């Protein structure tokens, strides 16, 4: 055991940055140390945001596309949402992703998240490569395109997996403001 632990690569960020991050059973989870060598993608959502809800099929589809090549997590940062509400939400929207709760905004801060839905892509060594919108489907509250014309998240994940430099580091997302930070 000790040998295994000590063989893990050293990460730029320490465990302290994921304080309070738990799964739906309330067990502490550190997404940056669960799958060594893999790109980590966090997608922030909430149960009551119509924009992030509309994105559910897209989020599910993108995560499926990278199965085995990148670790996707669905992150619920709103403290007042209970594990039960989240389970119901997952079922209704057909989500199959690994779920994290981030009530202390540890991941929100690390991913520099402002709204839901918003995505963040980290390199295998925990460096934030991209954060922001999934694509340009929404241009403003209530103003969506018939279909998106850009794919920032897909571009970022593909580049991160290939080890290529990213052309865009951040594009602001349109979505529901996170409740003021605790």
């Amino acid at each position: 055991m000790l040998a295994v632990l000590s063989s893990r690569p050293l990460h730029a960020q320490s465990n302290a940055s994921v304080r309070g991050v738990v799964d739906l059973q309330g067990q502490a989870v550190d997404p940056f140390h669960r799958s060594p060598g893999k790109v980590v993608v966090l997608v922030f959502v909430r149960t009551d945001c119509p924009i992030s809800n509309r994105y559910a099929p897209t989020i599910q589809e993108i995560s499926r596309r990278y199965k085995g090549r990148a670790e996707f997590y669905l992150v619920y940062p709103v403290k007042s949402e209970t594990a039960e509400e989240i389970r119901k939400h997952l079922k209704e929207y057909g989500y199959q992703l690994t779920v994290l709760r981030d009530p202390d905004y540890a991941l929100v801060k690390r991913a520099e998240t402002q709204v839901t839905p918003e995505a963040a892509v980290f390199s295998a060594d925990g460096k934030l490569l991209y954060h922001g919108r999934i694509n340009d489907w929404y241009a403003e509250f209530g103003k969506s395109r018939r279909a998106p014309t850009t794919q920032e998240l897909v571009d970022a994940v593909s580049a991160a997996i290939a080890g290529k430099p990213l052309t865009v580091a951040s594009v602001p997302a349109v979505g529901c403001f996170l409740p003021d930070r605790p």
Partner: protein
Amino acid sequence: MKARHAAIAVPAIFSVMLACLADQGQTSTTRTRTPAERTNGEVTFTRDIAPIVFHYCSPCHRPGEAAPFPLLNYEDTARFARQIAYVTEKRIMPPWLPAPGELKFQGEMRLTDEQITLFKRWGEAGAPRGNPADLPPAPVFAQGWQLGKPDLILQARKPYLLPAGGTDNYWNFIFPTQLSGTHWVKAVEIRPGEKRVVHHANVLIDRLHSSRRQEKQPGAGFAGMELRIESETFDPDSHLFFWKPGSIPHEEPPGMALRLNPGDDFVLNTHLQPSGKPEQIEPSIGLYFTKQPATKFPMLLELQNDRALNIPPGAKDFVVTDEFTITADVDLLAIYPHAHYLGKELRATATKPDGTALTLILIPHWDLNWQAVFYYEQPIFLPSGTKVAMRYVYDNSAANIANPFHPPQRVVGGNRTTDEMAHLWLQVLPRGTAEEQETARRNLQEAVARHDIARDLGDFAQQYNLGAMLQARGDLGEALEHYRAAVSVRPHDAIANNALGGALLAVGEASAALGPLRAAVKAQPDYFPAHYNLGNALASLEQFREAAEEFRKAVRLRPDDSMAQANLGGALAESGELEEAQRHLERAIQLDPRNNVAQENLAEVKRLRAGGPKP
């Protein structure tokens, strides 16, 4: 013996295109400046923010309503303080399209600049609660049906399953009514089903069941953004029954109820936006009756210029106009501007005969998602001779987020979501006595039809409508011209061909009538009037066996139609089939004892069967 022919049945078509109606149901309140506005003191929820939230936000932001989260108290509001400041400053919320102008609408949902500043200052101050004693009473909302228990509730026969993702959907539900006797409807409340995905919905009446032809199976419903309803008479068809988030149903004033005949259908047109999960949409509509029959008949004047919609890709300011001079004194009650996704700025104006100009509505930033019917606070008097005009600007560039094409493509007028529309409906109530109002309505209908035809000879519906109007007032010669024009636009249209054949028959040109009537029965073999008229035309030409065949088909379609039975009996009698003739004539009299044609023919048949000489 000569079989007598009954009056010719010529149903008229009246085409109405209405879609996606919606309106606000709130009443506006006048307000005074709050203490915080006056003093620049601290902005608090209880004193400054709550009155605005309760009036403008809570009607939709509450459980069971369309908005995604509640805004009913301090906690609800404080957690969204920053977002509320953002969406109000950008005037995204509350949704209200018209710019402020000299004419006031019912239920205006427009915040003042001062109110917007209050939200901003409150958010910046960290959303303080304030003194609990300042808090106004929480708003009280009716649960369930907003107008109380309806007199009749109609349920969708089959739910529509909205997929989790994809583009906007437009789905139509047909609600048959099974009432005996005429009823008067003063209000229709629409419960659209899952309100969070229904953007808006509107109801039209379909007296001819013309929408049923669009269903693959009875009760299945059908797709489509715009409805085209055929109607038999010059029904005013002027009642706007709509639903949009937060709206309270519009109740027609006394004397303006909608006539509901036995068997009429209601058709509900819904605009649905996928939510991310599959949704079952199962709407219902509630009808509220009144004993008071209609004495006032508002009508819809429609300005439109879809033909001018041929918008090149990239065009940012493509202008379409139309104008129409009103031929009677009317009161303008409501206005409904309609465009699709390229609409940018929609404007309607009125210029009175004395030169006074009025902006009827100006929508500086059109958004299909928040379209509505707008009722004026007070009716606007428009004297005869007033010119009403619409001027719509379209943006077919990539900068238009709502553009259905990427990259932009040429867009033309049409009913699909990727087509564009340029329509403006004005609900007007003619002034004067009942008789004057009736005359005014007919004049206006005719003026609108002539106006549309002048612009577009290929306007099928108006060519047809004008033909029917002229026929109704006995001007068969001119009616024929317009029916011919309608048939030349749509050579296979059963209703237009039948009308042309019927009118030819009425002017004694039975042989000329055969062609159009045969085209009508071919186009729509279950169309009773065409078989009936074709039977009459053949009988006029003394082709009694063929006539009997057509009447037989008519009788099969409507076994309880006394005139069809009588004419079948007459044609059979002429063909020498006396026994069968007698059966149908007796049936005709059984159905309608006052059917003189049947009685005379029956007497003649009985005389012949008793061995009497042929006349």
